[in-house]
């Protein structure tokens, strides 16, 4: 209904323009954009609002923004539309879907679209760490929109109760284990790292901290059976089996925020995209910290990029690019960051008044950005969905005790090699 009224206003607006300026062509470009949402519900209003602003500024472009669930759902929805001849010009999808989207010949690189120095400057305006997943074979395929890193949320009240300094969250693995033990009580875990939903993502963070990447830069090789990687999984498992600071079995991604808010865990690792939701609902004093280091500091980036589909007309591409530039412009990036907790995607976003005022009042909003210095590209290969699934399964079977870490990871490595073989 809302779309409909907006359509009529857009139409009447453009008719008015046509009437007043006879030289102006009435050609209206219609865009369909599929997008996922981080914390559900009301955030669709934020996107709708940004889109409405865009339409007001560009009366000749009409945008159907379709909320379609989580990242996997959104990819399925957008590609189903393409396969069945429904229109779709752009989508926000997982930053790590790029390899597969290229391989299926579905998306167009941005390098051909942006022109001149202005375009160049625009592409260079984003944080390089956020561009990493979208730059493949020397071209740029994805523009960062809702991007995150993993951060550690901790309950300052519990830190105080346990006699720990609430302003000094753990900065190394050893400290984390030690503090975790002090924080673990009956009914409260010291730490929860989620192992459903995106276990590979958490695992990648641990692996980086342990000094080893999970995949090569070209998306063709995985290192699951590397000793340092196996050692990483052993460590994760030991958090519950040996140190007893995390519940045994898997920790649910979807309900973890609730568990943290209910005081069932003193620390949790989660996406920075959860920050605003935690801030709004927490009844206690909480802090946000960068992830601790072992060999080094680090977190993978995460979240969604804009993609433009290949099967689009020149006008549509131009319009889609305009929309993307609008939505990633500093003001909108700042608005989106404040509404969600996702990062402002460019340094310029942090120089806007809105975000400066916000981070002044609420410094945790800067943690994810500060962490970008040590961030790396999120795990992504060819056949990424299935390779990832194999890794997820390995992690879960190790954590639930069904298999030994070394054995589980070796199996995942074999499966990944089989899947990647045709691309070598």
């Amino acid at each position, binding site marked *: 209904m809302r779309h409909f009224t907006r359509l009529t206003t857009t139409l009447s607006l453009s008719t008015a323009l046509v009437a007043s300026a006879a030289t102006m062509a009435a050609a209206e470009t219609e865009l369909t954009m599929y997008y996922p949402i981080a914390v559900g519900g009301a955030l669709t209003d934020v996107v709708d609002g940004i889109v409405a602003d865009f339409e007001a500024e560009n009366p000749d472009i009409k945008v159907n923004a379709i909320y379609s669930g989580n990242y996997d759902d959104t*990819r399925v929805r957008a590609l189903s539309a393409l396969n069945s001849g429904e229109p779709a010009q752009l989508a926000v999808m997982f930053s790590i879907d790029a390899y597969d989207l290229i*391989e*299926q010949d579905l998306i167009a690189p941005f390098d051909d679209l942006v022109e001149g120095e202005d375009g160049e400057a625009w592409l260079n305006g984003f944080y390089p760490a956020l561009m990493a997943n979208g730059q493949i074979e020397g071209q740029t395929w994805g523009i960062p929109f809702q991007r995150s890193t993993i951060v550690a949320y901790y309950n300052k009240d519990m830190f105080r109760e346990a006699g720990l300094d609430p302003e000094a969250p753990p900065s190394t693995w050893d400290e984390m284990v030690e503090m975790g033990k002090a924080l673990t009580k009956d009914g409260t875990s010291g730490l929860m790292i989620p192992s*459903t939903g995106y276990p590979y993502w958490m695992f990648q963070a641990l692996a980086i901290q342990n000094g080893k990447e999970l995949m090569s830069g070209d998306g063709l090789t995985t290192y699951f059976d590397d000793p340092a990687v196996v050692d990483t999984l052993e460590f994760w498992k030991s958090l519950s089996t040996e140190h007893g600071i995390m519940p045994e*079995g898997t920790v649910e991604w979807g309900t973890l925020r609730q568990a943290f808010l209910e005081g069932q865990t003193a620390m949790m690792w989660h996406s920075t995209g959860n920050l605003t939701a935690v801030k709004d609902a927490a009844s206690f004093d909480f802090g946000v910290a960068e992830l601790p280091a072992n060999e080094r500091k680090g977190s993978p980036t995460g979240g969604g990029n804009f993609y433009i589909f290949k099967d689009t007309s020149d006008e549509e591409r131009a319009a889609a690019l305009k929309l993307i530039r609008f939505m990633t412009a500093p003001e909108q990036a700042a608005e989106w960051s404040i509404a969600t907790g996702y990062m402002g995607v460019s340094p310029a976003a942090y120089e806007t008044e809105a975000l400066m005022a916000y981070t002044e009042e609420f410094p945790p909003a800067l943690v994810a950005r500060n962490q970008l210095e040590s961030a790396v590209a999120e795990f992504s290969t060819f056949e990424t969905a299935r390779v990832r699934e194999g890794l997820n*399964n390995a992690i879960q079977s190790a954590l639930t005790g069904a298999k030994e870490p070394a054995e589980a990871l070796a199996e995942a490595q074999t499966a990944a090699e089989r899947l990647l073989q045709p691309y070598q």
Partner: protein
Amino acid sequence: MSRHVNIERRRQAIYGWLLLSPAAVLLSLFAFYPSAATFWSSLFSRGTRRNPSEFIGTENYADLFADPTFWLVTKNNLFYAGITIPVSIIIALAMALWANSKLPARGFLRTAYFTPTVLPMIAAANLWLFFYTPGLGVLDQIGALFGLPSVNWLGQPETALWAIIIVTIWKEAGFFMIFYLAALQTIPEDLKEAADIEGASRWTYTRRIVLPLLMPTTLFIMVNAMINSVKLIDHLFILTKGGPSDASKLILYYIWEMAFAFFDRPHAAAMTMLVLGVLCVVAAIQFFYLDRRTHYQ
């Protein structure tokens, strides 16, 4: 006279086919043609930017048989069927006997038993998610009253499939109960009276008279339960997504995932053919062996 009969016969044939044609067209479009097309596409490889699609015979099937996940999923599904079918039938029977007995408030009983049936599986899964969540969930809270440790029902390979099975039984038992209730009401009252006069206990009456009379219904329900054990997978989308490490993944979910999440249509097609094969065997048993005397005469 015989000419008249001939005309009548031809008339009937024309009408018969005309009346059937709308149904026949739709059945062809959405059952027969797709089955054939599935078979055909299961013989080709997946086309990508590097390798265009080509005819590869039974290679997709060979891949499946070499895929440990496929076997795990098959095993899961057999287990799922093996538990849900008998348990939901037994519970449905007990429910029907109770709801049909002289117990007080049997109206309430019947409503309570049947209610899950009218809920969408997705909604049911949401309700149960609340039960299963570790720490916060109802089951854990109840367990905590008795000093039991928190159990991660959906997050452990040993319990995840059971959690799924329980939701399925909860959902379908009430539905099957209705069929039993309907059958129970067709059993004449005099049988019960006769049994009472003979001095037979209620248990004897149930076992000797009621159960045999319910046999055809049981067979009908059994076939339905078998079909459900293939198609009732909606709750997986909410509860486990097939995890952890595929421990609760069922075959239809795997087909969906293969086709719509991994975009590997040929392997999905091969798996679909295998499922259709199994269903055809079930159908054949139903039609030619069990069903001679029962419903569809």
